[in-house]
């Protein structure tokens, strides 16, 4: 009897295992991609210039981060550096789908979002360097890009923290009846935080004009989605009777098309949505990640679907622009990024007195000593 009991105890396992080394190298794609839209730019209502611009925006995000990564490795700045590479179709497609005064908030993987929503490459790079010319005056660093004036309410470093903030921004928009839509982005890992459920419940009950969007890139740090979250992420919507959708996040046209539909519905009916956008993170979680939890083969599969290459090929295949023009755009983006690096390097650090600046609105607050 005693032996049997011990045997049974051995078998208990709480968290499922399953990706990378523990499947002996077998490829287990953590996210299944829905098929992309078949529509071409014209039927999506995009001009040729729009498509060229989309490519340029996406290439800028990619190059900015590749260069930032190099600068980080050279020790030019410190802190965490979470790269968005692989996910650029989501930021770009969404910003194209929304109005310029619609509101966006996201987590700490925020460089791409900033660049496509009003943070200049110079202000972004300077923020990474912790310079006073950075978009957040060097106070926030990589995780806290923001441009509130252009309705980009920032990157936020606490997982799940930005979810209810998005709901609150939407609440204010409804309160003021200004017709603006909010998009509140989060990682797949953030879905497990209780605050998601509290927020979805209130948002549905109160009819908040908010798109809660999950960038499901397959992993929360070193934990594959199926290990940290039960069922399909998008199914969280069901319990709240919320409208929902899953879409392919490796294709900018798909993101644009679907997010536009969703935004229109939100604007018209003042109801929230939960959208799961499937994508893949090309780099490690941050710069110190050995990536043992996934296989090279899996990464390679997704690299074949590179969203930046995809739109570039579209431009070429549709004869919108030729290789030369592509090269020109790439060169000019490269120049922009290099100028941003020079700008960041030449900029000043914040003045010592900035330590006490912006703690409060008033500038004569009696700080405790």
């Amino acid at each position: 009897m005693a032996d049997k009991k011990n045997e049974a105890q051995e078998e208990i396992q709480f968290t499922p295992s399953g990706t990378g080394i523990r499947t002996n190298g077998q490829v287990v794609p953590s996210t299944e991609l829905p098929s992309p839209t078949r529509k071409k730019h014209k039927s999506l209502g995009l001009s040729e210039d729009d498509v060229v611009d989309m490519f340029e925006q996406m290439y800028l995000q990619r190059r900015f981060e590749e260069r930032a990564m190099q600068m980080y490795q050279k020790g030019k700045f410190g802190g965490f550096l979470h790269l968005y590479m692989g996910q650029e179709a989501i930021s770009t497609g969404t910003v194209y789908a929304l109005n310029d005064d619609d509101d966006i908030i996201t987590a700490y993987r925020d460089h791409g979002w900033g660049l496509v929503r009003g943070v200049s490459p110079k202000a972004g790079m300077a923020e990474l360097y912790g310079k006073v010319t950075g978009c957040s005056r060097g106070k926030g660093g990589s995780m806290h890009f923001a441009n509130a004036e252009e309705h980009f309410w920032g990157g936020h470093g606490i997982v799940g923290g930005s979810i209810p903030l998005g709901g609150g921004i939407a609440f204010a928009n409804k309160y003021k009846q200004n017709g603006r839509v909010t998009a509140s982005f989060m990682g797949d890992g953030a879905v497990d935080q209780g605050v998601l459920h509290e927020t979805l419940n209130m948002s549905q009950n109160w009819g908040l004009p908010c798109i809660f969007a999950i960038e499901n890139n397959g992993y929360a740090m070193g934990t594959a989605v199926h290990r940290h979250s039960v069922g399909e992420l998008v199914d969280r919507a069901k319990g709240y009777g919320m409208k929902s959708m899953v879409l392919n996040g490796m294709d900018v046209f798909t993101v644009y098309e679907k997010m536009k539909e969703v935004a229109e519905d939100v604007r018209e009916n003042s109801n929230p949505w939960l959208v799961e956008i499937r994508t893949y993170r090309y780099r490690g979680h941050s710069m110190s990640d050995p990536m043992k939890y996934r296989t090279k083969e899996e990464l390679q599969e997704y690299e074949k679907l590179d969203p930046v290459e995809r739109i570039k090929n579209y431009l070429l295949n549709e004869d919108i622009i030729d290789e030369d023009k592509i090269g020109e755009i790439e060169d000019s983006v490269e120049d922009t990024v290099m100028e941003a690096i020079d700008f960041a390097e030449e900029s000043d650090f914040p003045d010592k007195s900035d330590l006490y600046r912006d703690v409060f609105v008033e500038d004569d607050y009696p700080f405790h000593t």
Partner: protein
Amino acid sequence: MAELQFREAIRAAIDEEMAQDENIFVMGEEVAEYNGAYKVTEGLLDKYGPKRMIDTPIAELGFAGIGVGAAMNGLRPIIEFMTFNFAVLAADQIINHASKIRYMTGGQIKIPIVFRGPNASAGQLSATHSVAYDSMYAHFPGMKVIYTSEPEDAKGLLKSAIRDENPVLFMESEQMYGLKGEVTDEEDFTIPIGKAKVKREGSDVTVVAHGKMYHVATQAAKQLEKDGVEMEIIDPRTVKPLDIETIITSIKKTNRCVIVDEAHPFGGLAAEVGYLIQREAFDYLDAPVQRVTLPDTSAPFAKNLFDEWLPSANEVIDAVNTVTYRK
């Protein structure tokens, strides 16, 4: 004696205790298959299996509370927070539940749980990732708070924490995980919770410093030694219960005190120790007690501001100079 990294000392404490008691398990983000965000729990999944090494979702409130419930029902959880900065999300379970349930049920229930992980800042990670929480938790009755500075203390005190029948918060530092130190080979070595240690003897001034700040204080001591000033450094090791006697005994000898704490100034350990000194040793003081803390602002990202923000050896030296009237 063996030379161990801080992380190895913590791992050894967990390993030794897990080997002795099947009811001990470890739960937290990335603790098992990833081998720990800071490699503290490396190898323990292979040794103890997925039943006792449990990866959680990013759900601090939930897994802290599951830990508390499991402790109520006879297990001995070690809950790892990736940092105590994220334990803020779990504060309801720690403060409202873990620390109060025994009291509210008239002693029917005991909650032998350890919440552990790095505390305070770890370089330029900006405002939300840089807060020292030991004083905040010490404010509340019903839980013990430990924040150690050296591998041997960490090992001995963590073993005691795991064996303790109450909720214990055990704090570490990302920046100290690689720090090496001699750790005794003495079998089943433990250090009692609530005992400070005089880590440097000196007759001119008592400096109280724990956690990462202990190392800032020792830097200052080396500098001051050259000027003929001998600091006595006391590492409280345990914040709650606080060993004030050891501090008072030292002050009766040196008649001067500086407290170094990586917390904001309002209502922290430095404030508490300062109050206790004036109550217990008022007549022995030759100078008002000084403190070196963070300023009353959150952590900035920019390197120059961050360095300015963090307590430094120079600030400790200035404070020592003030209490010894050398300036």
